[in-house]
């Protein structure tokens, strides 16, 4: 994402300014309201959420507390789900980069006849809607020989499938932006193609590849459909699916909100960090 150039000097009436201000406030309220409610519920005491109709739900809980989070931290199934999500995400990143970076490199650097056809095939799997593709994928991965693999690997494979096209796309752009002279210099100094790749290109491509890795990780962290189908039977599962399972027991509002909040926090933190990081990374590249 690059800095958008905004129209700086278009004349705007005072009336329009106030309308715009009011609308922005309304939209911000609309956006923040659900997140506020989730956070509020997660720190609520029982009286604030189980009203029995005697009084309206308070805007702020009567006795806010962190009981729910304490309870979660000692639940084995919750911590297990968190670790599973973590491992699945890391696996997805590893597979995507190992498969995708070389592919992107080849696409960026070598003259391949029929590049367009290749690109089409690489992206073609994403033409299927998730909910349609999951049926064949689940049938395949849940039967022998794949069913012998641990569920973490199965879900990781599925997430790699989802993230790979985008990873290749980003990595291709990254490699295209690295000047060829560097490689030529390396050749002159006697390095073979593999060495050039590992010792020169990969370090330079790291920021862009890092962005692809982060995107893949959060795609995997938030992903629900494939994780749900692939871990339908069995105890080990990812956080979103765990959340769904808890939901089917009609839990208290504060419990379910606490889990939801924990799922969200890494994503929100990273979104803000990544925005800043990407802006810095790109300007540094421009100066070079």
């Amino acid at each position, binding site marked *: 994402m690059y800095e*958008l150039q905004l*129209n700086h000097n278009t004349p705007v009436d005072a009336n329009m300014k106030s309308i715009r201000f009011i609308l*922005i406030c309304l939209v911000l309220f609309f956006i923040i309201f659900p*997140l506020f409610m989730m956070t509020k519920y997660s720190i609520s005491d029982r009286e604030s959420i189980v009203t029995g109709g005697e009084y309206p739900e308070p805007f702020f809980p009567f006795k806010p507390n962190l009981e729910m989070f304490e309870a979660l931290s000692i639940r084995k199934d919750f911590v297990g789900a968190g670790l599973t999500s973590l491992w699945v995400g890391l696996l997805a990143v590893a597979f995507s980069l190992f498969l995708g970076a070389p592919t992107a490199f080849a696409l960026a650097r070598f003259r391949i006849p029929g590049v367009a056809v290749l690109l089409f*095939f690489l992206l073609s799997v994403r033409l299927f809607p998730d*909910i349609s593709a999951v049926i064949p994928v689940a049938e395949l991965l849940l039967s022998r020989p794949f069913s012998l693999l641990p569920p973490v690997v199965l879900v990781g494979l599925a997430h790699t499938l989802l993230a790979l096209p985008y990873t290749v796309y980003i990595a291709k752009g990254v490699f295209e932006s690295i000047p060829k002279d560097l490689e030529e210099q390396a050749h002159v100094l006697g390095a073979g193609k593999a060495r050039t790749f590992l010792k020169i290109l990969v370090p330079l491509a790291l920021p862009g590849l890092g962005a692809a890795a982060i995107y893949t990780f959060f795609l995997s962290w938030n992903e629900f459909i494939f994780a749900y189908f692939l871990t339908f039977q069995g105890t080990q599962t990812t956080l979103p699916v765990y959340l769904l399972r808890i939901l089917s027991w009609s839990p208290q509002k504060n419990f379910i909100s606490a889990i939801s909040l924990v799922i969200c926090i890494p*994503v929100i933190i990273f979104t803000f960090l990544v925005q800043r990081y990407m802006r810095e990374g790109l300007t540094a590249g421009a100066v070079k």
Partner: protein
Amino acid sequence: MPSSIKPFYLLHKLKSNLFTIGFFIPAFLYLVSFFVIILVFLLKFSFSEGIPFLQLLSADDFKAALWRTFWFMGVGTPLQLVVGLLLALLIQQSFKGVGVVRSFFMIPIAIPALVTAIIIDLVFSYPFGPINDLLLGRHGFFPQIVSVPINWSGSEPLSLGLAILGKTWRDMPISMLILLAGLQTIEREQYEAARTMGAKSWQEFKYLTLPLLTPAILTILILRSIENWKEFVFPFILAPAYPLLGVLIERLYHVEQNPALAASVALCLVALIGITTLVFTLITKMVRKYLVRV
């Protein structure tokens, strides 16, 4: 080239390019294998014995789900366009703090869809939830609109409405970004020219901004329609009693243990998306012709 030499030539080309090929073969094989597996499976199961596909066309469940999904798309797509346009217009011009506002506008897409759906479920809970409290007039500052709490998930239009609400909320940033990019392409000079001719803001919008935004608008209509056809998470959580096509697929696969029927519906979905894309592409072509003529 003499035919006796051709195979050697190709082999030589292959050997010297082994490195290149080795580089992209893994990802290529991985993705293409899955593509083939998915396609073959969906086709095979839809046309296996008993031809579940034909069963499908007469099943009431299926027709109901199809109709509901069509409505979901028909209401959701324009709504998502309008909301995206509103957001894009609000942050189009530079003002103090526009960067911060833009960051906030991007938040919905960072929240997992499942979490958003659950929050909506909690907020609209029946019989005692914040929205019902509000509508029953339990809070002093808001008048009473209903006398009994509303059962949101018990009513088809309401529960689907909530699903649309959730989907729209979550995908606002996407429409906003596309429209914002479209707005950037309109040169400032056009606005200045319009002003010198005495155009007011709403006239500028109607005769200048909207027509020039048509490509972006059409893009959004296509993308959103596709997204709405295949929506699963929001209807799954908020309207399970009134399944859309995606929810139906899950139900057939897990609850009714019928992978063949699930695959048929899945194939149907793919076909519907293909048809929609085709229709919109044709509409885009027609609109382009019309614009050029004018």
